[in-house]
């Protein structure tokens, strides 16, 4: 094991070449609904327990099911209202379990990116061949059910190996949501040398992190999302920033929380210089217009690092 995953090089935020988003937008804004399936009784991975108690863990399993049974329609309705196409972080097995949800998202031309097979199957402990098999399985499942292979990856339950991004790039992916080192897209070093990028997907703005880990009150979550946006919007005039709201239908769509989300979407989409887009569109645009110049700038500034 090395001290640095060697996925990205140090690259100071100040004095970077400016990113100009389409139509002069200051911020590229995207919403990433995680549409997940958690198994009630998955095979045990020795590195991480799926549930804190013995099966059946009713509380944990059933609230996640709430997201699909109840929450999805609420969130989809709001995204429709504010003309936002979701970029779905998808447990690929949901294509088989709940094809109705896939169908509705397809009708809306939402993006589907890979979030593994199930959120109860972790990368930990898999051999490289096993991990490749899981990644390719999700690839082909998503392609079969949506007509397109996924461009992006958020590893299932954010569980990684040292090869995760290499394997995903080799499968044909172009972006990852697994890194939280920047407010702009950045090149990621992958072993096949392909143009592979990190698209900012915020852990801080993630509803599950906000509600379950940080235990934030709903309206306060709305407030910090708007403050996050305000700063990225202001700075975006000079730098070109990305803001993502990663959501879960079992968090954001609960009756006591959906108001905070709606007020935030209304606020953000009420600004003129916002590119409301998807993860893949950000990755494509960045690779097309800024990947090479970013690489050159990074190279120039890496100095004599030891």
């Amino acid at each position, binding site marked *: 094991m090395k001290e640095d995953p060697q996925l990205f090089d140090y690259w100071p935020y100040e004095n970077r070449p400016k990113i100009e988003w389409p139509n002069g937008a200051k911020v590229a804004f995207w919403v990433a609904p995680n549409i997940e*399936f958690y*198994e*009630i*009784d998955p*095979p045990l*991975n*020795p590195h991480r327990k799926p549930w804190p*108690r*013995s*099966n*059946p*863990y*009713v*509380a944990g*399993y*059933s*609230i*996640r*099911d*709430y997201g*699909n*049974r*109840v929450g*999805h*329609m*609420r969130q989809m309705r709001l995204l429709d209202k504010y003309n936002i196409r979701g970029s779905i972080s998808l447990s690929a*097995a949901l294509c*088989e*379990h*709940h*094809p*109705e*949800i896939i169908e509705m998202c397809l009708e809306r031309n939402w993006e589907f990116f890979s979030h593994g*097979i*199930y959120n109860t*199957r972790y990368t930990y*402990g*898999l*051999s490289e*061949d*096993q991990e490749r*098999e*899981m990644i390719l*399985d999700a690839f082909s499942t998503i392609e079969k059910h949506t007509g397109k292979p996924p461009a992006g990856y958020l590893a299932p339950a954010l569980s990684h190996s040292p090869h995760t991004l290499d394997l995903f790039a080799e499968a044909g992916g172009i972006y990852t949501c697994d890194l939280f080192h920047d407010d702009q897209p950045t090149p990621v070093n992958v072993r096949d040398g392909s143009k592979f990028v990190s698209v900012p997907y915020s852990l801080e703005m993630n509803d599950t992190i906000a*509600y379950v880990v940080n*235990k934030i*009150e*709903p*309206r306060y979550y709305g407030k910090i999302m708007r403050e996050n946006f305000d700063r990225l919007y202001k700075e975006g005039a000079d730098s070109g920033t990305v803001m993502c709201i990663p959501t879960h239908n079992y968090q954001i769509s*609960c*009756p*006591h*929380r*959906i*108001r905070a989300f709606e007020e935030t979407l209304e606020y953000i989409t009420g600004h003129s210089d916002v590119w409301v887009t998807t993860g893949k569109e950000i990755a494509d645009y960045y690779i097309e217009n800024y990947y090479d110049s970013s690489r050159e700038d990074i190279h120039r500034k890496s100095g004599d690092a030891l």
Partner: protein
Amino acid sequence: MSLDKNILEYPKRKYGMDHDRYDWSMLTDRPKVIWPENKKLALWVNVCVQFFPINQKGKPFIPSGGLTMPYPDLRHYSLREYGNRVGIYRFLKSFDEYSIKPTFALNTRVAERYPYLIDLLKERGDEILCHGLHMDALHYGGQDIDEEREQVNRSLDKLRELSGQDVIGWISPDRSESENTPELLVENDVKYFCDWVNDDMPYQFKTKNGELVAMPLSQELEDSFILLNNKHTEDSYVEQICDACDFLIDEAEEQGGRILSLNIHPWMLGQPHRIGKLEKVLEYVSSKSEVWSASASEILNEYSRSADS
């Protein structure tokens, strides 16, 4: 390094759920539910009246609200008992003031230990449902079925005897179940249970002994979840319930009747600095002309009637 090949095998990867307990069904795909007088929102105030024994075994885990200090944990034992001695009488006054029809989920040990309280509830005529034996008599995955059968049987028989009611509803202590709990409940003539939080409306739950109804008792809106688990302020509790109430009324206008379920604990909201917050919530919700305050089984009956028509 690699894992056993079963880690990449998916025997349940097919349409619907990965178990056979209930059918996959999105809320919006179901027929609209009509409540009496065409009300939009059924208000289910569910009071959990609990006994935490001081000789807690904590097996296989300590429940939420359970004792955490070395024996004898007087501070938590007595703080929970505060609810049964003081808090619940504040609750009753508040309910009456705002014409709320509460439902009481009793640990059977509470009914056995406090005849005054069970007699009072009997006299009021409020619905009583069974919340298991006590908070240290947990149901859990892998539990011996005979042990659990005895637990279910004893808690229901005794509560039925002491309450004089049929007692057709159930909430497991800490909402924890074994793989057999639903079967054992049907075996003991339970009609509905409230452990699963995957829906905002009732739905049919299958067991080997026949069907149960899963009633939607929100955990996210529970007083102890918001205040104790999430450590939000009392004012935020009020705000969250009122926001949920507004949202559900709006949704019901379009999609048919909804349920606002408030699971509350006398040891939590019955404190002097919190009871006013509960009253604020009750005042707000009961002031809405769209709201119908009812017991759990009244809501279930009206739901069944509406679904059949």
